[in-house]
């Protein structure tokens, strides 16, 4: 079975190396989508994303843009650079912006219809104070039906909200990288369907083996497993 990891990070402090890729390959990750973490910690996005593009090109990875709408002329940068990336990742808690504020909504309006999903990062480290809510993402998803939203960093404490707000929104997806609850993958498959779950590991922050085991050992059909491990992310990121 092929595996595409939608949540691998690099930063100035922790560059991704060929050794990392070999390691991921050895435990079962075939393809990697890479995002910069530095944008979450206030590095200018242009610089960070250029580094992502460079590394992705050298190592044959899928580049995701890390985007901070609070930067000056952020939307201009987004529009001019979006073509180089397969998704936009935002860190609302770290960059202290409101998901439902007018600033970010204008960003979303400008990319609706471009076919690029938005990954909303709830947390990066386990000690992070999580300010993002499932309800807010779902509110955006209702308003911007032409954009797929991937919630990354949710945990089992979000289960009630996932059922209440996300269940009926087919443009809301869940990345399991920080989703640790018992039989969490089975729960998501039952509540929102296997086509809306994607595999992320948050490597090198977290042990990637945990997320892989969640999917590989889940009590689901092989077709569902393949969708979660590979097909859904491939479709979302428009990879062929």
């Amino acid at each position, binding site marked *: 079975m092929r595996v595409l990891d939608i949540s691998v990070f690099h930063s100035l402090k922790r560059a991704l190396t060929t050794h990392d890729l070999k390691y991921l390959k050895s435990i079962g990750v075939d393809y990697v989508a890479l995002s910069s973490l530095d944008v979450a910690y206030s590095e200018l996005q242009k610089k960070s994303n250029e580094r992502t593009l460079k590394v992705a090109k050298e190592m044959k990875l899928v580049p995701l843009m890390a985007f901070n709408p609070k930067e000056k002329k952020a939307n201009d940068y987004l529009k001019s650079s979006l073509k180089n990336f397969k998704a936009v990742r935002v860190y609302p808690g770290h960059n202290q912006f409101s998901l439902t504020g007018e600033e970010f909504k204008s960003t979303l309006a400008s990319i609706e219809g471009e076919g690029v999903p938005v990954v909303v990062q709830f947390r990066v480290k386990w000690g992070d104070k999580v300010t993002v809510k499932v309800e807010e993402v779902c509110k955006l998803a209702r308003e911007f039906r032409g954009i797929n939203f991937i919630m990354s960093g949710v945990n*089992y404490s979000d289960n*009630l909200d996932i059922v209440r707000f996300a269940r009926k929104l087919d443009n809301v997806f869940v990345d399991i990288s*920080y989703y640790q609850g018992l039989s*969490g993958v089975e729960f998501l498959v039952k509540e929102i369907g296997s086509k809306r779950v994607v595999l992320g590991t948050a490597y090198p922050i*977290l*042990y990637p083996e945990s997320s*892989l*085991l*969640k999917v590989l*050992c889940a009590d689901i059909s092989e077709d569902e497993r393949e969708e979660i491990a590979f097909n859904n992310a491939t479709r979302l990121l428009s990879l062929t």
Partner: protein
Amino acid sequence: MSVLSLLEEFKGRIIDIHSHIGSDQRFLLEGSEDYIVKVMNRYGIKVAFVSGTHSLIADFRVGNRHVMRAVKKYPDRFVGLVSVNPYYKEEGLKEMRRYLRMGFKGVKTHPVYFNLPLTDELYLRVFEEAEKLRVPVMAHSYDGGVEVSKVADLYPNLTIVMYHMGGIKWKEGIERVKKYDNVYAEISSSVTDRGMVEKAVEVLGYERVLFGVDMPYLDPAVSLGKVLGAEISKEAKEAILCENALKFLRV
């Protein structure tokens, strides 16, 4: 080696020192004994030490009864831990003695759900009794081991399993309990920071690191991934996953 091949080496021999019987509808988590056994089978967990979910969030006596029912139904799969609400004073201690006489192997404490520091006089009575009866105390710890280390200071002959290894502050937790040979670190929690198991082994030695899952809250994949992914020797993995907890069966 693929992660499934890594798991295969330990399947059927893994001992979980920290789980619960009972569902938690606040998070829509299923925790009946039948379901827990089904999950254990899927991951190759042979035995789980369990306390009652309801003991923490509703009534400690109800939770203990659930555990007893589970142990009777699956005597080869579950080892009972008795929960004590220290506010119930003598009634709690009686409950503790009764379940220990019936074969339970340890005492579960939770300072957060019971809203009482482990060093409160009410809790100290529980620890005194546990020390006297020579049974281990399993203590929830998300404060970097602060409370656990205070109890370890007071009761050097009491065996303490520091559940969650101190939580988000796991680095502090490990360092803080280093000097207490009677304290063991159990690795379960949502926190899966790379390097945490390696650090625990480096500071405490692998003999003092225990594998736990914390069902029905967490999936076994979470803790298994930490151990299988850790850059430690195969011997250390074997000890953490399959051997270290055996000493608590012999109590």
